[in-house]
């Protein structure tokens, strides 16, 4: 049962982002594990999951699951059929959990959203299922009545990853009997005080030790780190900094995301020097 500090892992890519960099998964996952993380969320927003083909997502999930940390596989896709197929695969491959975001683009009504989530949860049962709530990315929030009804339909519903801001948007999701992981690093401590299960942090994909300290010791300042990286396309900045930290992850991201330009890299290098 996952708790604590989880990294929303980046997905190592090569060939200008066109292919998985399979050899980089092992060392990257070792780097995350050595920092003391409790687990990872694979193929989420930081992990470019939505940009990969279904076959790549299956393969990447297997590579993440071969690592030393328990992994939740994000399986949210545009259609219910693809989401369910990915969820079933991840469960079969030994995922510690499956997470699914509300499909973006069409604002689903309660009925459609409930059916989508219930089908995905069913596809991976009995593996724990997590709803990935991120209104800014999906375009609409998961209504609480949908969650309540989902509990009745999906006994493997274990909790949520909530990446909303500010805390007022997170609070309603801190439901008794569900494990809630907070996404926004600024809100992790407030979440823990209110009984959240921990953090699933994009920043932890680059600075795992900082987020581990934040969750375990309730210590340290991570907001400035996050803000510094947020000045750039996040996935590219994360991969660039990982490279600078000696982790063999390339700068490649999947189009239409872009790499950092030289000017941005110089700025980040200067910032890293100042840390």
């Amino acid at each position, binding site marked *: *049962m996952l*708790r604590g500090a989880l990294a929303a892992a980046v997905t190592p890519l090569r060939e200008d982002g066109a292919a998985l960099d399979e050899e980089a998964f092992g060392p990257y996952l070792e780097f995350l594990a050595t920092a003391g993380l409790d687990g990872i969320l694979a193929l989420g927003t930081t992990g470019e999951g939505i940009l990969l083909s279904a076959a790549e997502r299956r393969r990447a999930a297997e590579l993440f699951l071969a690592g030393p940390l*328990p992994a939740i596989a994000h399986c949210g896709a545009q259609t219910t059929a693809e989401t369910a197929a990915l969820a079933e695969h991840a469960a079969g491959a030994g995922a*510690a959990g499956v997470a699914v975001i509300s499909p973006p683009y069409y604002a689903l009504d309660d009925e459609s959203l409930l059916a989508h989530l*219930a089908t995905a949860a069913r596809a991976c049962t*009995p593996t*724990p299922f997590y709803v990935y709530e991120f209104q800014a990315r999906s375009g609409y929030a998961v209504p609480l009545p949908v969650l*309540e009804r989902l*509990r*009745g*339909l*999906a*006994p*493997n*519903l*274990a909790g949520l990853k909530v990446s909303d801001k500010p805390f007022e948007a997170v609070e309603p999701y801190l439901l008794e*009997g569900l*494990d809630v992981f907070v996404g926004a690093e600024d809100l992790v401590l407030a979440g823990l005080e209110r009984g959240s299960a921990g953090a699933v942090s994009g920043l932890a994909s680059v600075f795992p030790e900082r987020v581990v300290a934040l969750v375990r010791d309730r210590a340290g300042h991570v907001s400035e780190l996050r803000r510094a990286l947020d000045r750039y396309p996040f996935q590219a900045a994360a991969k660039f900094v990982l490279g600078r930290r000696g982790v063999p992850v390339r700068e490649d991201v999947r189009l239409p995301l872009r790499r950092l330009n030289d000017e941005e890299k110089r700025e980040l290098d200067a910032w890293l020097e100042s840390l």
Partner: protein
Amino acid sequence: MARIVVAGAGAIGASVAYHLASLGAREVVLADRGRVAGGATSKAMGGVRQQFSTAAEVRLAQASIRFFEELGEPLFHQVGYLFLATTEAGLAELEERRALQADLGVAVERLDAGSVDGLRTDDVLGAVFCATDGVADPPAVTRELVRRALKLGVEVREGTAAEALEADVLVIACGPWSAELGAKRGVDLPVRPLCRQLLETSVLPQLPESLPMVLEAESGFHFRSRGDRLLLAMVDPEPRWSFEEEVDETLFDDRLERLRHRYAPAAEAAIERGWAGLYDMTPDAHPILGEIANGVYAACGFSGHGFMQSPAVGRALAEEILGLSPSLDLGPYRLQRFASEAGFAETLIL
């Protein structure tokens, strides 16, 4: 204070660990080779009944129901258990059990089965109903117990073999895998795996939320609702004594026919999915509870009704381990009973 390691993070192990911590144990580790609620707990029907055939078992169930009632919705749905008899012999047996249960204070009553909408009753000679029985989702309840245990300071170790941990006290709660760990401690636990299966129907739009667990006394066929589907189960024609968890699809048609016969809203139902899991059977279908060697306790052999008894068992065993006066008499459940001829077999295995 002693370091207590509970092996097995299913419904039983989670309950033992939670109750140990809530009774003041400071150093409790809940370890599982796999994950929390990952084994038989994740496969179980989730029925919670007090209608058993022996007094000891009824008492365990009664004490457990109180815990489930406190958990409440959405973890526990108190929809009741309805037993139907279609033969004179079956009816006589129901009546006999009802008398025993009533003596122990379980509110089991005769019911006109026709009062349950959609239930076919022209072949039913009589029915008994216990309104305080119900259904729950075992993994959800187990995760909740682990959450509470964590808050009380229990350390949860997934992917960890308990025997690799240092322990002053070891509790074996590994379901069908308990005999393996017992043997490592030099104790022969007569627990063996029995493969059983559950079937799930297609979505049935008209299911009432209040549908009780319905059981046919003679055949053992039973079903409950979960969300917008029904779950069905019945004893296999030939018991499958095996660790192999295999679904026997040749039984689907028969089970579906029984369901359609009994419950009109399922007329259009299909079997959409089946899964198999393991019962941890003992020779008399009662669990083994208590100390089995110096510093080694057993909580296993629940024979298919462990989840529903897990609250009371967890509490009573925790009390025993901590040297407190037990809230329930675990005397009938000692391992030593198998050394003698005197038994008290539970006859109502579903």
